[in-house]
């Protein structure tokens, strides 16, 4: 079963009506709140005047992956959350208007800009996720030759493999990869840097490898638990191979866990329950995500720490848990074991730290790559951005895009200053 995008595109009438509602604020707070600082009133005004080419260019000017961002950004926390109309009215539907302009650009196969004249410089980008693609495109704008190395079969990073289709269809992410390629960027997929050594001859390197797989819980029977990231990527790329359980447990309560629960529901699982060591209050998922999944009919088991998977006759039957108490750290209460019946268990408890850091000899902070304010690592000429450096704040696509953009500017400075 293929899961369709949840929100329909705006009709041109809806878009113009909504665009006209925008006040066209000066030094608008929505643009400040957007991590890539898209000139939002400007692109919206252009929708109201039917100048969709100009509208799309305005978005691309600040954000090459505007099509993905329009769909996946937590707008309530960003642009729309800051809209001056939010307090007393409904904020402008900035995300959906952005999608409207980006859909137009995609339909016209628009290029955001003409690549700059070649400077003879070469830059390697490791990882074709949002950070890498944004950096690559911005470098192409400035005339640098860019090669992107991507270990997976498809580019797009988590936009292709991780963000549920309800929010963004795979095709949108892949179209963005193609657009970046059409700017002259070479994307080599199936190449894992670290395993395969980077050929020398690059003037700079941008590391945008994101984070790794879901970490181990370290409990008996863990091999029976599905990896949430893998579960989502299959729901996007091979939906027919997924067999939805009837009674599904999702371990974790972050945004990924919520996504897994949503997908399980949409795929037809009868009961979906999220299992979390803490309470509602400590959940890291966005408020709007939490209420969305509650509306989808997902249940919650708070203050529960999984300790063992119960398997009978080659099938999962339950998850054994201990009650926890918050001290404020969750501490299991001895002897409080209880069983949560289940025929499918999915874990979504974060992602592992980037392993490439140690291979390349990059210094880290709390396991993430340490960078200076120009996003340069301890090794001169090696820059990094995206989830692999996100020490503070919630990792999101748009932050990765901004990192890629800022890194490209810094790389350009550095490379042209030397040359």
């Amino acid at each position, binding site marked *: 079963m293929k899961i369709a995008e949840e929100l329909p595109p705006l009709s041109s009438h809806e878009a*113009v*009506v909504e665009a*006209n*509602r925008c*006040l*066209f*604020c*000066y*030094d*608008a*707070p*929505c643009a*400040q*709140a*957007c*991590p890539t*600082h898209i000139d939002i009133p400007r692109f919206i005004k252009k929708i*109201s005047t039917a100048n969709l080419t100009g509208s799309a260019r305005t978005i691309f000017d600040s954000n090459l992956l505007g099509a993905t961002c329009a769909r996946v950004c937590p707008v*309530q*926390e*960003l642009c729309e*959350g*800051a809209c*001056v*109309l939010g*307090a*007393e009215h409904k904020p402008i539907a900035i995300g959906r208007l952005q999608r409207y302009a980006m859909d137009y650009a995609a339909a016209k196969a628009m290029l955001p800009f003409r690549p700059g004249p070649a400077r003879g410089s070469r830059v390697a980008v490791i990882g074709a996720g949002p950070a890498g693609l944004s950096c690559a495109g911005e470098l192409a704008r400035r005339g640098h030759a860019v090669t992107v190395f991507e270990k997976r079969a498809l580019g797009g990073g988590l936009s292709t493999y991780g963000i549920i289709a309800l929010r963004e269809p795979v095709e949108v992410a892949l179209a963005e990869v193609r657009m970046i390629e059409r700017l002259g960027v070479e994307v080599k997929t199936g190449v894992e840097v670290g395993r395969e050594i980077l050929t020398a001859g690059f003037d700079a390197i941008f590391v945008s490898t994101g984070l790794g797989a879901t970490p181990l819980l370290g409990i008996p029977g863990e091999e029976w638990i599905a990896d949430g990231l893998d579960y989502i990527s299959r729901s996007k790329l091979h939906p027919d191979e997924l067999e939805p359980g009837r009674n599904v447990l999702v371990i974790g309560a972050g945004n990924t866990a919520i996504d897994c629960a949503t997908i399980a529901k949409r795929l037809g699982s009868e009961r979906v329950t999220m299992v979390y060591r803490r309470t509602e209050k400590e959940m890291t998922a966005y408020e709007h995500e939490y209420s969305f999944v509650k509306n989808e009919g997902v249940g919650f088991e708070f203050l529960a720490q999984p300790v063992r998977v119960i398997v009978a006759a080659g099938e999962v039957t339950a998850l054994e848990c201990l009650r926890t108490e918050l001290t404020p750290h969750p501490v299991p209460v001895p002897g409080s074991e209880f069983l949560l019946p289940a025929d499918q268990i999915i874990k979504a408890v974060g992602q592992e730290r980037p392993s490439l850091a140690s291979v390349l000899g990059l210094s880290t902070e709390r396991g993430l790559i340490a960078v200076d*304010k120009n996003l340069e690592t301890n090794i001169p000429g090696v820059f990094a951005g995206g989830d692999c450096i996100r020490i503070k*704040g919630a990792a999101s696509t748009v932050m990765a895009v*901004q990192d890629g953009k*800022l890194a490209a500017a810094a790389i350009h400075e550095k490379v042209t200053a030397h040359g």
Partner: protein
Amino acid sequence: MADLRIKFAGIESPNPFWLASAPPTNSGAQIHKAFEAGWGGAVWKTIGPPVLNVSNRYGAWHYGGQKMLAINNVELISDRPLEKNLREIRDLKRAWPDRAVIVSAMVESKPEAWHTIVRQIEDTGADGIELNYGCPHGMSERGMGSAVGQVPEYCEQITSWVKAVAKIPVIVKLTPNITNIVVPAQAALRAGADALSLINTINSIVAVDLDTLELVPSIGGKGGHGGYAGPAVKPIALNMLAALGSDSVVGSSGKPISGMGGISTWQDAAEFLLLGASSLQVCTAAMHYGYRIVEDMIDGLSNWMDSKGFASIYDIRGKSLQRVSEFQHFDLSFKAVARIDQERCIKCNLCYVACNDTAHQCIDLLDSGGKVVAPYAWAVTLNGKQEAISSRPQPVVREHDCVGCRLCYNVCPVEKCIEMVEVPSGRESVTWSEVVRDHCAVTEDWEAMKTYRDAHGIEIH
């Protein structure tokens, strides 16, 4: 309950709301419906010589998602046979004795033609005649409509032909396509007109189609100027109405004026009454929403009158005319400054950009510590809702520098957020005409102006 009845040049009507001569008054069946909806009167769609109409006859001006802020038309007078119109007018008046039934007419500029039509109209039992001197397209090419209204001598002559035979009240409908509306109005009154009405439609080209490069509307590839009406023309109509009321000849003639041009709500209606109209005509608003709009016009006007303690239409008619003056009589020492209510302000910065780009650069953005900050001063590395909202500066007017131009007040999207506050200027009241009288050099010599300003403490920023 306020009494909305009017007696307009002898014509009685249960309320001042009449449908203007136009498509809403094209036939008896339509006006029956309109009267059922509550309209106090109707001016029948102009009758006269045979005509043929075209398709795509209406264009419109839409703005910011709002449909039909104005309509533009190249419609001619009634294209229905004269006999049929006359018969239906007779039936209508018989069925609705308490409503005002007025017939608009326009014929060739010959006395016999006018005499004939006047008699035909009187035979129907109609309450009055409106002379259409306004149609700005088509009919004017045939020497009628605005071709008459634009030449005061013709206006006077034709009115006198009509008045020579008419036994029922004659209303002269003026065209706004003229430099000074008072001149044709005086001409009509000289010829004995019993009342005036204004405005007819304004010459206009509504748009050019950017795909086909044709005019909008395109009549088989061609277009031309058409008559403009609807909400957008209201300020022009109000100005012309006030000009008549303020003119000593027209104003003191005692002849009533039927006001129209953009009336869409009871508020619009009240403004026309306050500037001297005693009957009101409506066309575009009815074409946009149907006859039902009269219900709130009556209800709203009546409630407003009750709340203000006005008992009848005649208590308000022309009540604001005494406020109409000229620049030379305005008080140069009157001073108002803009003040922003920070509680209401949503920090859209529209006032800031308006004042700084195009007015007098006297709104500052202040951070939470009260320090002036430049726009776009935030760090590109910071983002998010909390950051954007909490760091957003507050626009504040430097009242000392504010000239009180009122631009910010007009652009602010929030109701009652910016107020123009009257402040003492510390100067004695003085008007330009007094300045000219007492210091005539200031009108020609900047040095003299400087001396005058210095002596009176007038600073220019």
